[in-house]
């Protein structure tokens, strides 16, 4: 029904990482050909036996799931908590070491959560056309995210990725885009943006505090040790 793929560091046979291990790791360009570790491969194979829908959609789900698992193998910050290929492809992923701005009611400045738990839905409709930018990603944790593209105060709010998510946009790219959005590396603060913003108050706040963004300039495949939080120094607090 569902499964949680394993990170290579959790597999006994995988080599341990040292501080400069990033240099030896494959990059994003290697993902399509990156072999999955045996446990992940068998998990994926089992999930695919439960996959429903037309052959083309089942095939696509396998490719997207493989890409996501491969990404999790090379990205220390990405942990797949759950994967379901039965109808829509649904993944619950954890982004570790990812600064996420949160603001409790009544506060005037944001705090940084140290990661996020996201529910990602990859629907069959993306095969034939763009889907709404608010459809694929929901933020399960942390709560009270203070972000121009996240509706404030909702439970499991959507993270808007833009005016649309293009046809065939890969699942792993959705994860990368979500990371860029949550850390304010790539996001719109323009309340007059035709696509709109989900939290105009946050958009105005960040426009007035432009020096606080991005929250980190560490790329997705970057290491925890290299993380430098520009805005949240001294404010980082794991609120999950």
């Amino acid at each position, binding site marked *: 029904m569902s499964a949680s793929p394993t990170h290579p560091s959790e597999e006994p046979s995988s080599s341990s990482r040292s501080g400069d291990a990033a240099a030896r790791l494959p990059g994003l360009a290697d993902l399509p050909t990156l072999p999955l570790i045996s446990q992940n491969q068998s998990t994926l194979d089992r999930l695919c036996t439960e996959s429903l829908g037309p052959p083309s959609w089942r095939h696509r789900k396998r490719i997207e799931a493989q890409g996501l698992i491969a990404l999790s193998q090379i990205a220390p910050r990405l942990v797949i908590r759950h994967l*379901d290929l039965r109808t829509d492809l649904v993944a619950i992923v954890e982004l570790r070491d990812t600064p996420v701005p949160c603001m409790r009611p009544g506060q005037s400045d944001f705090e940084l959560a140290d990661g996020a738990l996201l529910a990602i*839905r990859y629907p069959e409709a993306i095969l*034939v*056309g763009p*889907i709404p930018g608010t*459809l694929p990603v929901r933020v*399960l944790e942390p709560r009270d995210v203070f972000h121009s593209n996240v509706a404030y105060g909702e*439970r499991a709010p959507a993270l808007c990725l833009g005016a649309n998510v293009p*046809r065939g946009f890969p699942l792993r790219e959705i994860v990368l885009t979500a990371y860029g959005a949550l850390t304010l590396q790539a996001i719109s603060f323009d309340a007059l943006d035709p696509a709109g913003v*989900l939290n105009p108050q946050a958009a105005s706040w960040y426009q007035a505090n432009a020096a606080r963004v991005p929250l980190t300039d560490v790329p997705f495949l970057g290491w925890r040790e290299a993380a430098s939080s520009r805005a949240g120094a001294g404010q980082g607090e794991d609120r999950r």
Partner: protein
Amino acid sequence: MPESSRSLFEEPTAASPVSWIEAPAPPPAISALIEGLDRGARQPKLIDGPADMAARLSACRVAVIGAGSIGQRVVDSLARVGIGGLWICDPRNTKPESLLTHPISPDEIDVPKALLAARRARAISPQTEVRYFPGAFESMPMDALVGASHVMIATDNLAAEVGVTQACIRLGLPQLQAAVYGPALVAQVRSLPADGQGAGPCTACGYLKRDWDDLDEGTRFSCDGPADAVPAPTARATMSFAHLCAISAELAVGELLRQLLALNVGDEPGVGSVLEFCGFHGGTTRTPLVRNLECPIEHQSWSVCSVEPSVAALTARDLGRIAGHDDLREVSIRVDRYCFASHTACGCETHGALDRFHAEGMPLPGPCPRCGAERVLHPLYTYREVPGGALAGQLDRTLAELGVSAEACVLVRGPRGSTLIRSAAKPVIARIALSAKPPLVDSSESRQEVTPQ
């Protein structure tokens, strides 16, 4: 800011209609003018034409998607030949620029195009069953085209075009697509027959990379809109002379009549074609169309069943049986405009069980009885298309008991094909079904009912 009660798969919540509307009757004074008109007074006796021409025409129900510079004219012409039914869909209103290409007068500006076309068709041909839908085709129910015999695609909105052609393939409906390319003075009509399997070409089979890029770039959703909203119509307008639009429309009507009246001499059965008129040299060419195996559209037809009294009276097990699947673990079930939620999220550590179908766009009833917080559908446990395995424990409860209303239609997909199951007593569309006296389960309703004899 959106309300916190918004669901994961919210549909547009505007007070717009959700399906076809009967066209208004013309004023009595207008009706009186044409009362007693002989509808065959101007119809030619065709060489080797069918003897039952009028019957064939009155048995035909054409859905016209797009009622702009081409679609309005298609509707007009089909009403004048006494077509049996016209279903007209267009989300937009006329605007001043519409005067330049549409067959409208200045006093018809800022009127829903679908309504305008429907009103005129009804006035021209009162016996024609005319319906309209002043919204986006993508927001219509899955069974919106069930009962139509042909579909005329006359929209310049690529997202709508893809949606319509997909629906036609699924429901086994022959399609005609009328379009113009202004700079080259080209009017073209694609004829895409239905082969019952979905193996023939669709409009998207001819798309180039540029078209798919246009689809991506031209499809915009509002960030604060519903998660599953239909896209805002693109601002791109048809750039053409009015006469070219008229030529395209009349060529399309001509192609439809060729099919209806079996005048398509020389056409290879089941093979599509594109008929092109070029305004520079004034000639036409016809080219065969074949399916593009790279086309991302699902080229597979559904079976269509009508049940009495309603789908909501059936259990999931019944649905599987009707669709020919005894093992529900190998099927998925989609109830149109509903999602199935097994759990909700609130302030509690553990997620509360729901195990119901939930109407999209509706808030969940009441707060969590334990923590008092407002509940939302949990993204992980909410399915628009629910795997049969997720319904375990609910297999013998009727859909009504699980929260589904009587008008809903259901799609069951499994390894042996897909089946659309709908209520025979559904408003508006039911009138067509009643004429065919469907049995409890009629697995080939759409194709058998509408094919002209």
